[in-house]
């Protein structure tokens, strides 16, 4: 291998290392955020269950006021869009799979029919 080719591959390897460091930092931040949400939720439950009536009512009223009607509607719309997207995606993946099978048949006799090595639904293989 030529020395410049080697240098370029070294650069690509360096980019991989930087990506791993960034991914690690992002994962830590995500878990910290999840831990904070769980802590805050537990804190609220403890206030509801253990503390005085006044504190219970205050915590409950805060929760109810924050669950406004428009927020519930927005959540419903988001959920419906999510379900719609999922069903649509399932259909698309099925079409990709059929198309891939046809492509393979058509290209079977080609002298160079190298594959992208993606799986049958067009995703990167998991391993």
């Amino acid at each position: 291998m030529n020395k410049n080719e080697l240098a370029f591959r070294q650069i690509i390897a360096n980019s991989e290392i930087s990506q791993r460091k960034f991914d690690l930092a992002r994962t830590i931040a995500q878990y910290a955020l999840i831990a904070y949400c769980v802590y805050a939720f537990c804190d609220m439950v403890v206030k509801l269950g253990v503390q005085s009536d006044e504190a219970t009512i205050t915590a409950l009223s805060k929760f109810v006021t924050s669950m406004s009607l428009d927020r519930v509607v927005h959540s419903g719309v988001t959920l419906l869009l999510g379900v719609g997207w999922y069903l649509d995606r399932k259909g698309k993946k099925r079409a990709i799979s059929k198309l891939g099978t046809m492509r393979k048949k058509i290209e079977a006799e080609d002298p160079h029919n190298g594959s992208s090595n993606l799986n049958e639904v067009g995703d990167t293989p998991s391993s």
Partner: protein
Amino acid sequence: MNVIFFAIGVLLLMLVWHGVVRRAILDTTRDKLFDLRDEIRETYIQNGWDMKADSYRRIRALINAHLRFTEEMSLIKILVVNRYVASDREVKAFISERSRAMFSDTNEAQRAFIDDIRRRAISAVMNYAVFGSFVLVAIGVAFAPFYIAGQIFTLANSGVGSILAMCFNSIIHISNSLSDLIDGVGRSIASKIIGAKVLEGYSFRAGQASFC
């Protein structure tokens, strides 16, 4: 209480970005690349070009590498590669030379066709490089009005009629216009981050490496 909802909202946003939007962008990019691969085959057959030729094998391998690499691409990796390549003149010259020599053994018609395919393929990959990053999408959305203004400004010399015609056509063909706008914005941003030849060389090597 609002802070909790905000934190949950941020987590959901991350989930939607990675689980829905980014996947859809990846699929769109791969659709474009698969279409290009089919177009190469059809053109070779229609023109009676030799499908046993090395040029056919190489251009197909290039598209396959792009197809395989796109998902792994990220802003961080691109910035790191660009920074190192920019600081090493020898490697930069080597990448340019390899890119030029890759299809030097083809005839003029084939070369023109392959150059066009390479340009469109790298344009699709560059678009993914931009729109696969949440940060760059945010920049892209902010940059879009300036891009539209720039397009209108370039038509300014042709008169008001041309500008109105462009606006009218854009509204009638809204789907194509949006697609062109996204491509244009993506290309403008990507070209400021990384050169097409470097990205092609990077994608080709990284894509081929993942076959092993």
